[in-house]
């Protein structure tokens, strides 16, 4: 039983259901791994009792012969952006430190109803703003991966879902929730050799998820393989009347319909993603991906997404604009931090509270957002960015006349050392250059591990699909997974 923590969602669910092992044994195994991994700083709070209570409930159900649910007996990590009743929810910020929701987010409710349990709340970039997990108030998350040069440089697990990617990659959890606003599921998945899916905008309810940029935010699964992601996405998704942008359509049985035979499918290769000075190893992995999909029966087609280069700058207007509005709610009145110096008035209280409660990157984005929405600049920045967003979306619409799914790299590079990109916000933003276009268009997209580079660090390939076609995306991901045979693991040092 020593290897239960090597298992993924499907193996745990099926093993518990068949009685090969108990849900309690699984929860105990992962609780122990979590407790022994403080060096990675993947969790902000751990909830071993929650995991054990859920496991015991599943074992009791099994004894009575009841249905255990799609994720029965699977303990997971919950990104600390989802409100969890009675468990501190911080968005990795000081301003929400100590905030203990009186309610449960829809996505986490759905997961508990499907039989999952919670190992703890996972660290992330503060308010999900970052691509390296260096903006958390609770400290950096360290990737389990290291360069083999003996320097032991702590590496970035990606961001913003860096606690999630580290926890899954280091076997602290068989799966974790993530959220993706402009790459925050896909980029960390690529950095740590795991699989992550951002579904179509509206598939997963945003109710109870701390808001960053509401027109972009979307939750999704992060796990070891495509099948596990299909199972977990099925458990997370579904119509929710409490989210006005929730999709009122049935949730397909993605797991049952997984099929890696791509005969008759056309895979588009966007020529604008081939950028000057592209990392040769990334380019090589992309070529390899094409060959694999061809081998799976697909036809490879050259396509054009002409507005690709404008997607990232448009994103860095739209996302901060929405963030500046969303984060106006942190005022020291209703919840979270209050900083009220002696004799201060209401306005001073707001300004002091927000100065003390937000980190630098969050402040930077609130200021950019406030600026681009301010009178006189609204048309030149925000409105222009929303028009570019229309053009980016139209590029994809045109592409779908020629292809069924798009293949691209997930990131322009493998993971980098913590601190190596700190002094260059724009350089940091470029991490998401391949991820952001699908976010702006609300399309389903995923990252699947495809190999390691010459430094032994994981690389990911990205698949983007038509709206609502998570199946097509995951089928192509499965075709790559089967051919890549990715089995590299970070050597345990923590």
């Amino acid at each position, binding site marked *: 039983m020593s290897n239960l923590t090597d298992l993924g969602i499907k193996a745990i669910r099926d093993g518990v259901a068949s009685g090969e092992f108990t849900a309690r044994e699984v929860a105990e195994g992962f609780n122990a791994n979590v407790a022994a991994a403080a060096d990675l700083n993947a969790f902000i709070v751990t909830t071993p009792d929650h995991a054990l209570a859920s496991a015991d409930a599943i074992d009791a159900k099994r004894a009575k012969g009841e249905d255990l649910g799609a994720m029965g007996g699977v303990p997971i990590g919950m990104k600390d952006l989802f409100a969890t009743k009675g468990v501190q929810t911080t968005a990795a910020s000081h301003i929400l430190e100590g905030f203990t929701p009186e309610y449960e987010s829809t996505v986490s409710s759905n997961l508990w109803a499907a039989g999952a349990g919670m190992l703890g709340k996972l660290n992330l970039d503060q308010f999900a703003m970052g691509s390296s997990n260096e903006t958390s108030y609770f400290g950096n998350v360290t990737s389990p991966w290291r360069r083999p040069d003996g320097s032991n440089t702590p590496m970035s697990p990606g961001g913003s879902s860096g606690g999630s990617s580290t926890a899954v990659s280091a076997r602290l959890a068989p799966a974790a929730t993530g959220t993706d606003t402009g790459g925050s599921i896909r980029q960390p998945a690529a950095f740590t050799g795991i699989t992550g899916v951002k579904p179509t905008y509206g598939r997963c309810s945003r109710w109870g998820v701390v808001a960053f940029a509401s027109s972009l935010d979307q939750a999704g699964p992060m796990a070891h393989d495509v099948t596990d992601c299909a199972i977990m996405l099925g458990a997370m998704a579904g119509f929710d*009347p409490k989210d006005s942008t929730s999709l009122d359509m049935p949730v397909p049985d993605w797991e049952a319909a997984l099929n890696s035979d791509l005969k008759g499918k056309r895979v588009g290769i966007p020529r604008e993603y081939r950028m000057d000075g592209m990392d040769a190893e990334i380019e090589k992995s992309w070529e390899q991906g094409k060959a694999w999909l061809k081998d799976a029966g697909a036809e490879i087609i050259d396509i054009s997404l002409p507005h690709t*280069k404008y997607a990232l700058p448009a994103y860095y207007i739209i996302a901060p604009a929405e963030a500046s509005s969303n984060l106006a709610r942190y005022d020291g009145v209703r919840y979270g931090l209050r900083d009220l110096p002696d004799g201060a008035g209401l306005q001073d209280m707001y*300004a*002091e509270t*927000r100065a003390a409660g*937000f980190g630098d990157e969050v402040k*930077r984005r609130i200021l950019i957002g406030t600026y681009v929405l301010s009178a006189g600049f609204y048309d030149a920045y925000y409105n222009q960015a929303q028009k*570019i*967003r229309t053009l980016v979306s139209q590029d994809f619409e045109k592409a779908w006349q020629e292809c069924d799914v798009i293949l691209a790299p997930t990131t322009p590079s493998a993971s980098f050392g913590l601190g190596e990109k700190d002094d260059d916000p724009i350089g940091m933003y470029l991490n998401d250059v391949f991820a952001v276009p699908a976010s702006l268009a609300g399309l389903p997209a995923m990252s699947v591990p495809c190999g390691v580079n010459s430094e032994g660090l994981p690389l990911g390939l990205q698949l983007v699909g038509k709206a609502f076609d998570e199946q097509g995306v995951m089928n192509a991901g499965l075709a790559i997974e089967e051919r890549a045979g990715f089995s590299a693991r970070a050597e345990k040092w923590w």
Partner: protein
Amino acid sequence: MSIDRAAVAKIASLARIKMSDEELDRMAPELNNILKFVDQLSEVDTSNVEPMTAVIPNIMRLREDEVNADPKTGGDRRADVLANAPAAEHGFFGVPKVIE
């Protein structure tokens, strides 16, 4: 477009974030770098393009006119609403005095 320190101070005040002189000095060039980066959008001709309003077309729903249809968003939860307030008194949020 580029913004100076005074402009950053003005934006910070609009955003209700207190900033020291030191922070303003640090923020101004950082914000200018970001604005320089996003300025490339101005080279795209968008005169015939509508700004995006909904990323995935969706109909705006009306809920049934029913009290407490979903207990999670229904009424009678004053204690829950106030539970995380830094200062709650007599069933209200407490704030510093605003009327002289």
